[in-house]
């Protein structure tokens, strides 16, 4: 634990553990619900990577923005999207945070500046850059946190975004959740240069790598990054080294890695390590942890009940949300003045 370097109160420790356990327990339940066919489509779990969302998102302010991938349940939950509406979204119910239209891969929440939930690898990066541009131009002081996997680094959009972001000095915290695999492709098999954060540095973007299995290290890195960005708006790159304990999605036979490799990483799991450290440091007791568990269990039960009992959107609404419901009236026809001038396009 890099906790030594940061002053951790009992409250902070509890909050970190709670955030991570809440994601884990929520997703464990999602996996069950997937087997029961309550949740459908693709389901990508964050199992093993919880320290990243938990270490970063609580440092953001309400006006900051978030762009994430299809592996974003954790981000939505930590950001404060109510578990009820996340769960209802996974069920596809009208009460979901995206009205049920998006499902697991497309969690959105305008009130909390959550801009998805993007299922095109790399697709969220330019979006985040543009949000940052809006903030820079408007002088809003807000920061956009953009999460993506290391697989996205090979995409052209990564490159174009890094260059533009630095050229235009946009206040975006780029967070690479490097879990070593893009589906079944190990990083060494997809990147000529595997030290991801050096790639960002190549564009002149300040960048650092942190242990993504250590919530405190992630938090510390984030503090440095946010302080720098808030002082003088610019992009910042944080590579978080992590590991995904489960399959890529629910359709993955995991032919590409050994059980032993997974087991070894599990021992370094962000929840396990942090919990044991907190216990041994006397900052938390078994009873605290049990209480957290009970609390989360109740929240999950409530969320599932809510999702179950929520309504489906009527089929008659099928064509909603393609374009805005309201459009401005067409402009009144201009009054010809009679006078003309030569025009060119």
């Amino acid at each position, binding site marked *: 634990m890099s906790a030594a370097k940061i002053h951790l109160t009992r409250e902070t420790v509890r909050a970190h553990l709670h955030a991570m356990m809440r994601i884990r327990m929520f997703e464990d339940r999602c996996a069950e619900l997937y087997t029961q066919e309550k949740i459908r489509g693709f389901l990508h779990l964050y199992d093993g990577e919880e320290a990243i969302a938990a270490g970063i998102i609580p440092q953001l302010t309400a006006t900051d*923005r978030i762009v994430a991938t299809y592996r974003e349940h954790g981000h939505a939950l930590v950001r404060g999207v109510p578990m009820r509406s996340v769960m209802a979204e996974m069920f596809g119910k009208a009460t*979901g*945070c*995206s*009205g*049920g*239209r*998006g499902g697991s891969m*497309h969690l*959105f929440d*305008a009130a909390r500046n959550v*801009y*998805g*939930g*993007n299922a*095109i690898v790399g*697709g969220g*990066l*330019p*979006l*985040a*850059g*543009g*949000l*940052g*541009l*809006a*903030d820079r*131009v*408007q002088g809003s002081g807000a920061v956009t946190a953009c999460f993506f996997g290391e697989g996205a680094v090979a995409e*052209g*959009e990564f*490159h*174009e*975004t890094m*260059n*533009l972001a630095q050229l*235009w000095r946009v206040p975006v915290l780029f967070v690479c959740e490097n879990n070593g695999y893009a589906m079944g492709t190990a990083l060494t098999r997809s990147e000529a240069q595997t030290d991801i954060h050096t790639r960002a540095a190549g564009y002149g973007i300040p960048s650092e790598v942190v242990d993504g299995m250590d919530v405190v290290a992630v938090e510390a890195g984030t503090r440095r990054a946010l302080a720098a960005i808030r002082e003088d708006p610019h992009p910042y790159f944080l590579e978080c080294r992590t590991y995904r304990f489960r399959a890529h999605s629910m359709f993955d036979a995991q032919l590409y890695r050994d059980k032993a490799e997974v087991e070894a990483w599990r021992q370094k799991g962000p929840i396990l390590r942090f919990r044991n450290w907190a216990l041994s440091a006397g900052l938390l007791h078994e009873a605290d942890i049990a209480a957290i568990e009970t609390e989360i269990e109740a929240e999950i039960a409530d969320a599932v009940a809510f999702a179950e009992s929520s309504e489906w959107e009527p089929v008659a609404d099928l064509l909603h*949300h*393609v*374009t*805005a*419901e*309201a*459009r*401005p009236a*067409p*402009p009144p*026809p*201009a*009054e*010809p*003045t009679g*006078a*003309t*001038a*030569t*025009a*060119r*396009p």
Partner: protein
Amino acid sequence: MNQALREALQRDERIFLMGEDVGAYGGCYAVSKGLMAEFGEDRIRDTPLSESGFTGFGIGAAAGGLRPIVELMTVNFSLLALDQIMNTAATIRHMSGGQFGVPLVIRMATGAGKQLAAQHSHSLEGWYAHIPGLRILAPATLEDARGMLWTALQEPDPVLIFENVMLYNRSGPLDTGAGAVDIDRAAIRRPGRDLTLLTYGGSLFKTLEAAEALSTEGIEAEVIDLRVLRPLDEATIMASVGRTRRAVVVDEGWRAGSLSAEIAARIGEQVFWRMDAPVGRVCTAEVPIPYPRHLEDAAIPQVPRILEAARATLGKG
């Protein structure tokens, strides 16, 4: 366009223009000449060659409260940005259940006719009209080229404006009061009773020319400028075709799967029983555009082919 851009930039400070060479160079077709000096580098923003990236930045900036005008220089390069256009701009409102919109205007030049050969002569505006969530505009006149921009900038959703390269050659008298125009309706550019010629963009003036020639043969063609390729103004189209009972679509897209096909299909669906002849189509030949003038001319719609198709529809082939 230059004037339209200037006025938009003056009227709303959230508006800015971004794209390759819009600033220091003055725009590939001199459309934004002088604007950088006037509005500064933040509002006339030169981009690197990164079509996908800067289009995505435009989408994000729109979602973040600005009103960007992204210039993709030409439709030929827009393919590089298609993922951002289809999978983000056109889709985010839906995926978010209506929470987020992308009030973005994307402008680009389109069309053949300048001997720029196979990679620089695409006419894909009709193809883009396949994508739900987008509004697709194709100004054919100076008035529309100038007036559509401001209206498009008021839209809550992405609007793509395709400016035919041949339009940049035109200049002519324009009423000094010319201003914003609607972006909902097709326009009847020439009334007629014997058949309807439907077209847009770069083919409008050829079609009008053909209509004049037909007139000397005693055939009065109604000419409809579609103006808006998505959503199509079906009311205007069907009212005209239902009346004239004959139609020819003139479309610079490659024939198979062009917008002309959609129009023919809808005419079939909606006014089949009134039609006295099948819908004729004059499109671009199914070939990448060749460089030599004579082959380029042969590939894209021209007045003689429009005349032929019109006569055939009237059984006078």
